[in-house]
C-alpha cells in the first residue's frame, strides 16, 4: 500500500512546488509551508536527540564539567533581555573565539603555505601541457592578487596585470556559472524521471489538465 501511496504524495508535493512556474497559487503555498515545517521539525528532533546523546547521558553518568557548555549555551538566550544582554556576549565570545581559533590556526598551514607551495613549478615529471597550465595558473594568480592591490594606482604595467587578473576572474566565474547551471538542472531532471513513472505520472496529467482549465477560465473571464 505504502509503495503506491508514498510516490503519489511525493509526486503531488513536487507538482505543487512546481506550480509556481505557472503562477502564484495556494498549492505552492501549502508545499512551501510543509517543507519548512518538516525541515524544522526534523532538525529540532536531531538537535534534541544529539543533545541527549552527547550531553545529557554523559552528564548523568558523572561528567559534571559538561554543565559549563550548557550554561554558556543558555546564556545565549539572555539576548532577549535588555538587562542581561551582556551575558549573551560571553557565550558568543566563547563560540566565536573557539571557532576562529580552530579555523585560523589551520588556515595558515593549509590555505596559505600549502597553496603557495603548490604555486612552485615542479619541472620534473610535468608534460608540456601541464607546464603551460601551471604557468597560466601562476600568472592568473599573481594578476588576480594585483587586481585587489589598491595601494598602487592601476596604471602602466600594474594596470595591465590587473586587467589580466580581471579576465582570469571572469573566466573562473563563467566556469562556475556553467557548473551551477548544470548542478541545478540535475535536480529538475531527477524529479522529471520520478514523475515519469507510474503511479505519479497520472498526477502529471491531472496537473496539465488543471493548468489548461485555469488558462481557459482566465481567458474567458
Amino acid at each position, binding site marked *: 500500500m505504502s509503495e503506491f501511496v508514498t510516490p503519489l504524495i511525493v509526486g503531488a508535493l513536487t507538482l505543487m512546488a512546481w506550480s509556481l*512556474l505557472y503562477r502564484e497559487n495556494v498549492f505552492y503555498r501549502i508545499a512551501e509551508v510543509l517543507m519548512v515545517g518538516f525541515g524544522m521539525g*526534523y*532538525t529540532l528532533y*536531531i*538537535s534534541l536527540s*544529539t543533545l541527549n*546523546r*552527547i550531553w545529557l*547521558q*554523559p552528564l548523568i553518568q558523572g561528567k559534571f564539567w559538561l554543565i559549563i557548555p550548557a550554561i554558556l549555551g543558555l546564556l545565549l538566550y539572555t539576548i532577549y533581555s535588555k538587562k542581561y544582554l551582556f551575558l549573551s556576549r560571553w557565550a558568543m565570545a566563547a*563560540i566565536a573565539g*573557539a*571557532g576562529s581559533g*580552530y*579555523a585560523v590556526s*589551520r*588556515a595558515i*598551514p*593549509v*590555505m596559505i603555505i*600549502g*597553496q603557495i*607551495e*603548490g604555486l612552485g613549478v615542479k619541472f620534473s615529471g610535468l608534460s608540456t601541457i601541464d607546464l603551460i597550465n601551471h604557468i597560466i*595558473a601562476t600568472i592568473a594568480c599573481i594578476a588576480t592578487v594585483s587586481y585587489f592591490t589598491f595601494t598602487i594606482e592601476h596604471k602602466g604595467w600594474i594596470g595591465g596585470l590587473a586587467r589580466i587578473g580581471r579576465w582570469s576572474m571572469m573566466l*573562473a566565474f563563467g*566556469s*562556475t556559472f*556553467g*557548473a*551551477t*547551471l*548544470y*548542478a*541545478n*538542472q*540535475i*535536480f*529538475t*531532471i*531527477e524529479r*522529471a*524521471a520520478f*514523475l*515519469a513513472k507510474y503511479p505519479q505520472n497520472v498526477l502529471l496529467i491531472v496537473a496539465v489538465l488543471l493548468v489548461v482549465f485555469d488558462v481557459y477560465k482566465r481567458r474567458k473571464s
Partner: protein
Amino acid sequence: MNGRIRGDGMDWHTFMSKYDRQIIFLVVLFLTFLPAFRPIGIPLPQFYLTNKTYYAIESLKPGDLVLISFDFTPGEWVELGIAMRDIMQHLFIKRARIVIIAFDPNGPAIAHRILGEIDLKGAVYGTDYVVLGYIPGFETGMAAFVSNPKMFERDYYGNPTVNMPIMNAFNTISDFKMYIFACLTWVDPWMRQFSGKIETIIGVLSSDIVPQVMPYINTGQLYSLIRGSRGAAEYEQLMGIKGEATAFMDAASLTVSLGVILTIVANYGYLKKKLGGR
C-alpha cells in the same frame, strides 16, 4: 537567422527577449522529460578525477579503515547522495571497514538510507561498519573529532560503542587510510581540519564548486573528487552498473547543450543591439 517570425514585424531576438522566460521553461521541461520517457544514450566521457577516485578505492585492502562524513541535506540527494551510494557500495565490495560520521544534522539519516539500499556483502554492524552520528559545532566539531576520533560513547542508534570491535581499530585520526566527505558548500573547513592528517582525502562535491576546489587538487591537499551526479554516472560506468545517475545523463546533456545555445543566442542578440545602436 534574421528572418521575421511574427506578422507584427517582431524579429526573432526581440521575440525571444520578450517571451524568454516562458519559452525557456517550456523547452527545458520538454528536454528534461524526453529522455525519461525515451532514453537516448548520449556517450559520457570520463573525467580523470573520477578514475583517480575509483582506483584509490579499488586499491584498498580488506580491513582498511575508511572515514566517511555525510554533510548534506536530503534536498541535495540527487547531486551527492547517488554518488555516495555508489562509493559506499564499492567500499563494501572491497571489504573496507567504514566509520560514518556527519557534520550536518541530516547526515546520519542519509547514511541510514544508503545502508538500507546497498548490498552490505555480509558486513557486520559494529565490526565492519558503524554509524557514529552527528557532531555539532561544524568546524569546531571537526577539530574535536580530529583530536579525538573516539569521542563517541554511543552510536547514532544509541548503542554503547565501547564493545564494538571497529572502535578498537583506531586511536588517532591518522589510523584512517582514507577520508571521504560529501558536501554542497565550499570545502575550506574540511580541508583546514583534515588536510595532512589523513593520507587520502576525497570530496564528493556539487558540480558548481568543482572549479573553486581545483587549487586543492593541484596542490595534492585534496587527493581527488567526484563531481556530483555527473561524477556518479562516470563512477557507475567504471563499476559496470547502469544506475540512477547514468539514467539522468541524457537529460543533463540535452539541457546543458540548451544552456550553451541560449548563452550564444543571448550574446549575439546583445552584441547586435549594442552595435546597431551606435
